[in-house]
């Protein structure tokens, strides 16, 4: 590795290709988790039911299905929101400050944060999946009735948000694997530049 004084070695084409692939995956994951957050956060359905009939006057009750009624869906929205913010920050850091490093910890911190975000999304989406299954099928042993036959579009939108979140989870898994692979590559240009007098 013969270097002139003050000359920085070029980043190899394979590692910049990897950086671009990770950036593209991050953009897709950001859109997927943001879509999941927004669709579930705006998930609301109001329906009027005829509850009883007194004489000839029907008494109707208006029931609303909102995502805030279920703690699992609240956790889903919060988890996907935090994941989208994480992806957005990582995209900004990659685009505007690609070489900013602090004692060589940048790649390790990014990999660990990516793993934590994957765990967060996975927890949120699984809780929402099982609550949605409970709402769709009910539970006859606990005498819990299903609600999807009455609030069809609430359930449909919730299902769409869950699918978007699963897509985001898949892309985040790929990003985490690629970040860890980047960690394992020998950082040759860092080592060489420290030898330049």
């Amino acid at each position, binding site marked *: 590795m013969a270097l002139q004084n003050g000359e920085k070695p070029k980043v190899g084409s394979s590692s910049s290709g990897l950086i671009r692939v990770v950036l593209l995956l991050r953009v897709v994951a950001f859109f997927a988790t943001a879509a999941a957050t927004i669709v579930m956060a705006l998930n609301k359905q109001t329906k009027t039911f005829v509850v009883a009939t007194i004489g000839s006057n029907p008494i109707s009750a208006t029931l609303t299905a909102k995502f805030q009624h279920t*703690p699992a869906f609240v956790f889903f929205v919060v988890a996907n929101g935090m994941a989208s913010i994480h992806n957005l920050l990582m995209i900004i850091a990659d685009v505007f400050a690609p070489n900013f490093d602090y004692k060589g910890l940048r790649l390790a911190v990014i990999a660990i944060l990516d793993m934590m975000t994957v765990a967060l999304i*996975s927890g949120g989406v699984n809780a929402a999946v099982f609550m949605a299954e409970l*709402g769709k099928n009910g*539970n006859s042993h*606990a005498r*819990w009735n299903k609600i999807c036959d009455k609030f069809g579009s609430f359930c449909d939108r919730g299902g769409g948000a869950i699918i978007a979140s699963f897509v985001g989870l898949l892309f985040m898994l790929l990003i985490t694997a690629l970040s860890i692979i980047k960690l394992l590559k020998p950082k040759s240009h860092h080592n060489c530049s420290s030898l330049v007098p």
Partner: protein
Amino acid sequence: MAKIKRICTFLLRLIAFGTTLAAAIVMATSHETTSLFAVSFEAKYTYTPAFKYFVIANAIASVYGFLVLFLPSDSLLWRLVVAMDAVLAMLLTSSISAALAIAQVGKKGNSHAGWLPICGQVSKYCNQVTGALAAGFVGIITYAILLLYAVHTVLNPLLVQKT
């Protein structure tokens, strides 16, 4: 130094194996039948898909933990162990969050959907499920520590590779 590393790894994996096994067994043996005004009310873990998923995930994690306890420390399979640790930590996270969501509905009910809490009638079942979930939590925390420790010990020699 290598001996301390081996002892630490062995202890952590023993704890992980113990807690996941305990979570799976406690959840699988939770069963209660009560009768309320001549209506019998039975609660079993198989009636809820989330609890079945919890038992299966913890059973897989405990079998894997048992097998890894016997891996010799200078085998080449340790990198696969790191990857499998990550996969299993993800599986355990998802199972505990799903079981917690359903258990919260069972304990507090959901007045908007007209779902009544069942813990008043089958309190012994509820306590056993709570114990299994607590063991599951300790298991997932141990797996998270294991994952970080495995990345540090197995992959660290590669990170400081001199060219």
